[in-house]
């Protein structure tokens, strides 16, 4: 009844409630659409993405013999898939559809209705012209390799790894430190329940070590990545620890046997509060429990003149191998979880707080180690000179909510400051002052914890600390650190002399976040944390298929949220693996043999080596599985002998034509 050759376009203008309708005259736009060439139906509707909206499209396809669909609504990144599906449900090829973005591109960024509507008409005209050129396409499908790579062995990586391993998937967990555990391993207690971090983390750590489905590589980095969702080829560089993991039994006798009788090297795990030997394990519960030899400080490495007592001690286990070299492991995985965590803000960047100048100014993480039973002071909160502090000041928001450093709220500082206040008081009985801007306790049991602290007579002073100095005005301040702050509740400047200052430093992206981002081809949001695909609808996905996010690398969060997110990421990966394959966007490039002169211009341009030159046929050929559809070769082909599905020259020319032909 309808001639298939004659193009019949259906146009659907979405109000998106008032999101669009407020600044674009949707009625006028729809009416305008009706007047465009080839348009058989043109409607406006409140929410085209809703079920009734989609039904409308399906129905019209049948009733009006539509063979092209244009929806003018939001960004294709949001609903292109929705409408393609609707188009397909109506019995058309899903790619006879084109989406015109009049929300993100117009109604949300434009002030007056007149110019907004005019712009919308241009874009709609362009869309209608473009869709006329569309051709039916089939989605490709890529098999998913069931193995998974998890980068970063903090609580996020650990939890995700165990979840996947328990589901029977093989996981490669790569951690750059000698041990997994991340920041959490350094904590003493966790808020608000005050259960001991080690007690909940250590079991998970060891089950990672022992899990048959987990390959754990610590002291290692991901050095290269190629491929795409379903089959990534990953190169992992394992730095030499000079002790063979497969031979070492973790007796740690080599450490005691070291020629250094005293541990002289400041140890990283305790932020230098404690000392270690050149051969060491970062902390007693380290996983794997295999020492590392630090070539920077080991005499044998520095002078070659060591008695090598460690090797003697190791005896016939021969686990120590000073000639060990970096080793490359190359693995295939189908999906990746990035859980590379955060770094603490460097308090030195706020010189007026005297960190690094006054020995008794500490960061929160240092104090975490002090209060920790397995820490350098075995849980004793003592000053560097060994005294017990009588008064302690905890300064909130160091490197958070601050125009001069980081503008964001680090979310966890208020709570961990309260936790530390409690623990310090518990350990020392000292007077504890909290200097805060706002007290943020949104979370299960958080507010209650705050109340508990108030009852414990911890002092709370509202105001951002101006300065910390060691010169006193009177006897009470002599030999103390004086915290100068404007008490915004009392409305006056106060000077609080204390023995110890704790700086509640904020969370920020890892120093090398950018390299990691590039390695995995994902984006960062403006503050530098990794960018999720959609803040609400795809919070653990990225714009790179098969790469997911978990933990603080995506933004500051506490342990429960981190674990929840890790679970979510694991679930996404499982969905991918169990589906067995992933559908691909059919936007690949292809060579039109009859026009290819074999000039080879395209061959070298493809970053994915998808283009090969067929000597016998003297034509270029594009491997559809390898092509990712960037279209660089299409633009470069001097004969225009390369086409690209969904982005054909003809389609783009029509779009431009549509934009510029004033109707």
């Amino acid at each position, binding site marked *: 009844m309808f001639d298939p050759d004659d193009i019949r376009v259906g146009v659907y203008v979405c109000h998106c409630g008032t999101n669009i309708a407020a600044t674009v005259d949707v009625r006028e736009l729809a009416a305008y659409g009706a007047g465009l060439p080839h348009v058989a139906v043109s409607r406006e509707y409140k929410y085209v993405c809703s079920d009734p909206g989609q039904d409308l499209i399906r129905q019209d396809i049948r009733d009006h013999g539509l063979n092209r669909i244009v929806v003018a609504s939001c*960004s*294709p*990144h949001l609903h292109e898939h929705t409408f393609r599906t609707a188009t397909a449900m109506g019995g058309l090829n899903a790619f006879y559809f084109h989406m015109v*973005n009049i*929300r*993100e*591109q*117009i109604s*949300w*960024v*434009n*002030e007056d209705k007149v*110019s*907004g509507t*005019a*712009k919308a008409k*241009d*874009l709609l005209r*362009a869309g209608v012209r473009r869709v006329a050129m569309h051709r039916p396409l089939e989605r490709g499908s890529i098999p998913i390799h069931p193995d998974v790579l998890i980068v970063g062995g903090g609580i996020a990586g650990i939890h995700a790894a165990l979840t996947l391993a328990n589901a029977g998937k093989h996981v490669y967990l790569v951690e750059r430190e000698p041990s997994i555990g991340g920041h959490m391993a350094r904590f003493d207690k966790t808020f608000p329940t005050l259960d001991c971090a080690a007690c909940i983390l250590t079991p998970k750590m060891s089950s990672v070590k022992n899990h048959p489905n987990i390959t754990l590589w610590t002291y290692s980095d991901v050095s290269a990545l190629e491929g795409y969702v379903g089959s990534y080829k990953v190169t992992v560089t394992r730095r030499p620890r000079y002790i063979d993991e497969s031979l070492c039994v973790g007796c740690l006798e080599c450490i005691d046997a070291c020629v250094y009788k005293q541990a002289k090297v400041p140890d990283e795990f305790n932020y230098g509060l404690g000392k270690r030997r050149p051969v060491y394990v970062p902390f007693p519960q380290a996983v794997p429990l295999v020492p590392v030899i630090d070539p920077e400080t080991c005499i044998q490495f520095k002078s070659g003149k060591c008695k090598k007592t460690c090797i003697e001690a190791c005896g016939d286990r021969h686990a120590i191998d000073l000639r060990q070299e970096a080793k490359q492991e190359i693995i295939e995985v189908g999906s990746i979880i990035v859980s590379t965590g955060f770094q603490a803000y460097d308090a030195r960047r706020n010189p007026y707080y005297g960190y690094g100048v006054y020995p008794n100014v500490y960061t929160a993480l240092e104090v975490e180690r002090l209060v920790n039973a397995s820490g350098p002071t075995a849980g004793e909160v003592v000053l560097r000179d060994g005294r017990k502090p009588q008064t302690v000041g905890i300064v909130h928001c160091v490197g958070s909510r601050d125009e001069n450093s980081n503008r964001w709220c680090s979310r966890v500082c208020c709570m961990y400051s309260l936790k530390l206040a409690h623990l310090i008081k518990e350990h020392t009985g000292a007077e504890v002052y909290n200097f805060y801007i706002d007290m943020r306790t949104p979370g299960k049991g958080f507010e209650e914890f705050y109340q508990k602290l108030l009852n414990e007579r911890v002092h709370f002073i509202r105001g951002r600390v101006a300065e910390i100095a060691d010169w006193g005005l009177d006897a009470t301040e002599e030999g103390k650190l004086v915290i100068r702050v404007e008490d915004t509740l009392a409305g006056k400047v106060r000077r609080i002399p204390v023995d110890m200052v704790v700086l509640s430093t904020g969370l920020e992206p890892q120093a090398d976040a950018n390299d990691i*981002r*590039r390695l995995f*081809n994902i*984006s*960062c*949001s*403006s503050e530098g944390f990794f*960018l999720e695909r959609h803040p609400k609808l795809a919070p653990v996905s990225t*714009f*790179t298929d098969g790469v997911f996010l978990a933990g603080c690398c995506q933004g500051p969060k506490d342990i429960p949220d981190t674990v929840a997110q890790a679970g979510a990421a694991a679930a996404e990966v499982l969905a991918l693996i169990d589906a067995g394959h992933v559908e691909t966007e059919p*936007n690949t490039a292809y060579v039109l043999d009859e026009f290819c002169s074999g000039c080879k211009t395209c061959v070298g*341009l493809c*970053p994915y080596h998808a283009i090969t030159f067929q000597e016998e046929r003297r034509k270029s050929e594009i491997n559809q599985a390898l092509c*990712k*559809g*960037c*279209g*660089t070769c*299409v*633009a*470069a082909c001097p004969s225009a002998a390369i086409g*690209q599905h969904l*982005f054909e*020259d003809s389609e*783009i*020319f029509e*779009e*431009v*034509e549509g*934009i*510029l*032909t004033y109707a």
Partner: protein
Amino acid sequence: MPEPFEPKIVAFFCNWCTYLGADLAGTSRLKYAPNARVVRVMCSGRVDPQFVLDAFAKGADGVLLGGCHPGDCHYQEGNYKALRRFKLLQQFLGQMGIEPERIRLEWISAAEADRVRTVINEMVETLKRLGPRKAPVETQFAEAS
């Protein structure tokens, strides 16, 4: 009285960075000039100089190319190809009497919503200062026929 000159800009934005940046500008409700019309391509490397010249020939006052920052290309290096073509193209446009300010290549990441606003506003200002394109091809034909 004559209407004030409203330059028309054809913008080719890459799907992964600049287009998302524009989406973010939307979700952040940043307001900017309505003169740009965005054509979405997967990568700035897809932008065929033919598209740019076609746009100018059909009366665009300016052409804006948006891609990922160097090193950030979703397709690894498409944006470098875009840059090379752009620089050569700009020289050619100069010879054709089209001011270099009328074509602009910008690296705008998915996070840089504000950059989208600034760049488009700036470009509109520049084009308003330059005024409409010099005699478009059509009038030359009129002369010839």
